[in-house]
C-alpha cells in the first residue's frame, strides 16, 4: 500500500487522532517541515504495511526493538504495551498523528529510578512500512541516560517511529540518538514529542551519519524553569538526506533552550536544520539560543539552515540565533600543512575540531571514533 492510499475509515474508533490528522491532511512538498525533505516519493511509494508483533522479550542488558517489537529487555525494567496513551494535541507534524493511528499499542518504558539505558532499534524488513511508538516516562526527580542506536538492514523500506517523552517535575533525561545508516534507499520519519515539566532538564544529542533519508520532527514543550539543550551532528554523504526539525515552545517562565547544530556534507548529500524556537507570552525571563554551522566539502552538497524564532513577550533574557555555512578555513588548513601534516589528514583534523564542541559536551569518545572511521571510509 501507499501512504497516500491509507483508508482512514479503518481507524474510526480513534476519533480524536483521526480528526486531528484529517484536519491537518497528509504532508505535501509545500508543508513547511517537509519542504526540503522530498516527501512526495515516499508518500507515493508502495510499501507492505507491517504491524509489529507482541512477543515476550528475552532477558538482556539492553532493550532491543526489532521492527517495532520489543525482543530483548532488562528484567528489572517496567515495559508495557499500552493502548490509548495520552498524546500531544499540538504537534506540528501530521505524521505524528498518522504514526499513532498506525501504532495502536505503544511501547511504554517507565523509569522510576535513576538509570542508564541502551536501546537498539533493528530495522530488517525490506520494502516494508513499519510503524511503532515508544512512550518514555521519567519519574519526578529521577535522572536517566538513554542511549539509542539504529541497525539498518532493510532496503527500500519506510520506518515510522518516535518517542512521547514525559519528563516529570525535576526529572533529567539525556537522550543520545546515534543514527547511522548507509543504506541509500532506507527512509525513516520520526516525530517526537517531549513534555518538559517544571524544572526538568532535557539534553538531546543526535548523530546522523550516512546516506539514508531520515527526518526527525521534535515538538518540545518547556514548563517553568525547564531546560532543553539540543545538540545535533549531521555527516551526510552520497545522496543522503538527513534533517531535524523542531518546534520548541518555551511556555513557562524562566525556561531555557539552547541548540547547537554542526553539519558536514559531502557528495550530493542534503542536510536540514529547521529549528523554530517559540517564547510564549507567559514564559517571562526565558532565554533561547541557537547556533548552526555547516561545512560543505564539495559543490553540490546542500545545506538548508532555518534557525527561527517567534517571540511573544518583551521580558526575554536572551534571544539570539546564528547560522553559518561555508568551507574549511583555508588559512588554518595551510597552517597545518606548513607544519608537515598532509592535506587529507589536515582536513580531517579541521572537520573533527569543527564537531568537537558537541563531542566534548557529550563526553563520548566512541561516537567520535565512529565518526572518524566513517569519515575516512568516505574519502
Amino acid at each position, binding site marked *: 500500500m501507499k501512504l497516500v492510499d491509507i483508508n482512514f475509515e479503518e481507524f474510526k474508533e480513534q476519533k480524536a487522532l483521526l480528526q486531528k490528522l484529517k484536519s491537518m491532511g497528509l504532508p505535501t512538498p509545500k508543508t513547511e517541515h517537509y519542504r526540503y525533505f522530498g516527501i512526495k516519493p515516499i508518500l507515493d511509494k508502495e510499501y507492505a504495511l507491517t504491524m509489529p508483533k507482541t512477543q515476550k522479550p528475552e532477558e538482556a542488558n539492553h532493550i532491543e526493538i526489532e521492527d517495532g517489537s520489543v525482543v530483548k529487555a532488562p528484567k528489572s525494567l517496567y515495559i508495557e504495551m499500552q493502548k490509548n496513551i495520552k498524546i500531544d494535541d499540538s504537534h506540528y507534524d501530521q505524521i505524528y498523528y498518522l504514526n499513532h493511528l498506525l501504532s495502536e499499542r505503544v511501547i511504554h518504558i517507565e523509569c522510576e529510578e535513576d538509570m542508564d539505558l541502551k536501546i537498539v532499534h533493528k530495522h530488517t524488513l525490506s520494502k516494508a512500512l513499519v510503524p511503532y511508538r515508544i512512550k518514555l516516562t521519567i519519574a519526578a526527580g529521577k535522572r536517566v541516560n538513554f542511549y539509542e542506536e539504529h541497525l539498518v538492514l532493510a532496503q527500500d523500506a519506510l520506518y515510522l517511529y518516535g518517542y512521547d517523552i514525559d519528563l516529570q517535575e525535576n526529572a533529567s533525561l539525556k537522550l543520545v540518538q546515534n543514527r547511522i545508516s548507509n543504506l541509500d534507499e532506507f527512509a525513516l520519519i520520526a516525530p517526537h514529542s517531549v513534555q518538559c515539566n517544571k524544572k526538568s532538564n532535557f539534553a538531546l544529542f543526535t548523530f546522523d551519519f550516512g546516506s539514508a533519508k531520515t527526518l526527525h520532527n521534535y515538538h518540545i514543550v518547556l514548563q517553568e524553569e525547564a531546560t532543553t539543550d539540543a545538540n545535533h551532528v549531521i555527516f551526510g554523504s552520497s545522496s543522503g538526506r538527513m534533517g531535524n526539525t523542531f518546534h520548541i515552545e518555551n511556555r513557562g517562565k524562566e525556561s531555557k533552550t539552547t541548540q547547537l547544530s554542526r553539519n558536514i556534507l559531502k557528495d550530493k548529500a542534503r542536510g536540514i536544520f529547521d529549528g523554530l524556537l517559540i517564547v510564549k507570552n507567559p514564559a517571562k525571563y526565558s532565554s533561547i539560543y541557537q547556533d548552526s554551522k*555547516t561545512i*560543505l566539502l564539495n559543490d553540490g552538497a546542500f545545506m538548508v539552515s532555518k*534557525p*527561527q524564532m*517567534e*517571540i511573544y513577550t*518583551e521580558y526575554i533574557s536572551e534571544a539570539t540565533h546564528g*547560522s553559518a555555512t561555508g568551507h574549511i578555513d583555508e588559512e588554518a588548513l595551510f597552517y597545518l600543512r606548513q607544519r608537515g601534516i598532509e592535506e587529507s589528514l589536515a582536513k580531517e583534523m579541521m572537520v573533527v575540531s569543527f564537531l568537537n564542541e558537541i563531542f566534548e559536551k557529550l563526553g563520548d569518545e566512541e561516537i567520535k571514533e565512529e565518526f572518524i572511521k566513517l569519515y575516512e571510509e568516505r574519502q
Partner: protein
Amino acid sequence: MGMEKVDKIINSDYELGFEIDIEEETAPPGLTEDTIKFISAKKNEPDWMLELRLKAFHAWQKMEEPKWAKVTYPPIDYQAISYWAAPKKGSKSLDEVDPEILKAYEKLGIPLEEQKALAGVAVDAVLDSVSVKTTFVEELNKLGIIFCSISEAIRDYPDLVKKYMFSVVPMTDNFFAALNSAVFSDGTFVYIPKGVKCPMELSTYFRINAQNTGQFERTLIIADEGSYVSYNEGCSAPSRDENQLHAAVVELIAHKDAHINYSTIQNWYPGDIEGNGGIYNFVTKRGLCEGENSKITWTQVETGSVITWKYPSCILKGDNSVGEFYSVAITRLAQQADTGTKMIHIGKNTKSLIISKGISAQKGQNSYRGLVKIHESAKGAKNFSECDSLLIGDNCGAHTFPYLESKCASAQVEHEATTSKISEEQLFYLRQRGISEEDAVSMIVHGFCKDVLNKLPMEFAVEAKALLDLTLEGSVG
C-alpha cells in the same frame, strides 16, 4: 520601563488620513475579462498589452492566495473591489491638474510645481489608478533618461516594455503578481541609458484616495550598462474603516556595471488598534542584476499598512554583482508585517548584505522572512545577514524566519539575529543625564535603526526620521 508612558509615545495619529475632495470616475466593483478590457481601453493601450493582461487574468483565476506568511486577515472578496478610479479632471499639463490634487500633494509634502519642488528630486504623482503629474521630464530627456508613467511607456516605448516587463517578475510568479499583471493601472517607468548617472533623485508618490478601490501599480526600472539611478517611492491613504488592497509589482534590471538604489518609505494607513481599516499591502519587488559588477540596493522604511507582505529581492546573475537589503519595519496598533528579502546567488563572487531591523509595539506582529539561496554555480559567493528585533510592550511579537540554502562549497553564508526589549539600563542612563523617557526611547530606537536610515538619500532620510518619531509617539508601552 514605565509602560504607561511608553504607551503614550506610540499612540500617535495618522496625519495623512485626509481625503482629497475631487470628483473621481470609478469602475463598478468586480473583476471579469470586461473589467480588464475596460482598464486597457481607458488607457488607450495597444492590443498586445491587453492580450498579456488577459493571459495573466486567466492564470490568476487558477491560482490560490498564498497562506504561508505569518499574517491573519479575513478573506478578501476580489469581486467587491473596484479596479479603476481616476480623477475626472486632469491630464499631464499642470494647468489642467485639479487644483484640489495639487493642494493635496502639497499637504503631503510633495509640491508638483517644479519651481517649488525639492531641489534635485523629480516626481511622478500617482493618484488611485492614474499618474497625475510627472515633473522635470524635459530636463531628464536631455540626458536620454526616460521618466514617465507606465501607461505612457506602453504607448511610447513598446519595445522596451515588451522586452523587460515580466522578465524579472513573471506574470504568474505569485497570486498577487498575477492579479497585478491583469489589472495594473499605473506606475512609473524609468530607463537610464548607457553610461548615464541620473543627476536627480527620481521619485513616485502613490496616493490611494477613492473608496473601495484597490491600487495596483507597476514600476519598471532599467539601468543600462554603467548607469546609475536612485529612485524613491512614498505612499499614503485616507483613514477609512474598510480595508483597501494594494498589490504592486516592481521590476528592476541592472545591466553590466549599473547601480540601482531603490528606497521606499511606506506609510499607508495602518488601521486602528482593534485592526479596523488599513491597507493590505501585498507587494512583489524584484531586481535582476543581469550584468557583471551590477548592483541593486533596496532600502525600505515600513511604518504603515495593517498587513504587509513584501520581499524585495535580488537575483544576482552577473558575476561579481551585489545585492543589498536594508529594512526598518515598525508594527504597532494591530499591524502585521511579514517582510524580508530573497537573495539568489547565481553568478560567481556575488555578494549580498541584509540588514533588517524590526520594531514591534502595542499589538504589532513583526516577522522577518528571508531566503538566501546559493546556487552551485556561485563560486566564492558571500552573504551576510543581520536581523535584529526590538520589542516595546508585552502584547506584541517579533519573529525571525531565515531560510539559508547553500550548494556551493566555496560560498559563505552567515546569519545573525537577536531579539530584545529596550534595555532598562540604557534607558536609565539617558534619563540620569536629564533626557526625558520619551526622548530616550526615541533616541534608542533611532540608534537601533541607524544603519538602515543612513542608507536613504538625504532628502528622504529626514522624512523617514520624522516619520519614525511620529510613529513611535505614544507607542511605547
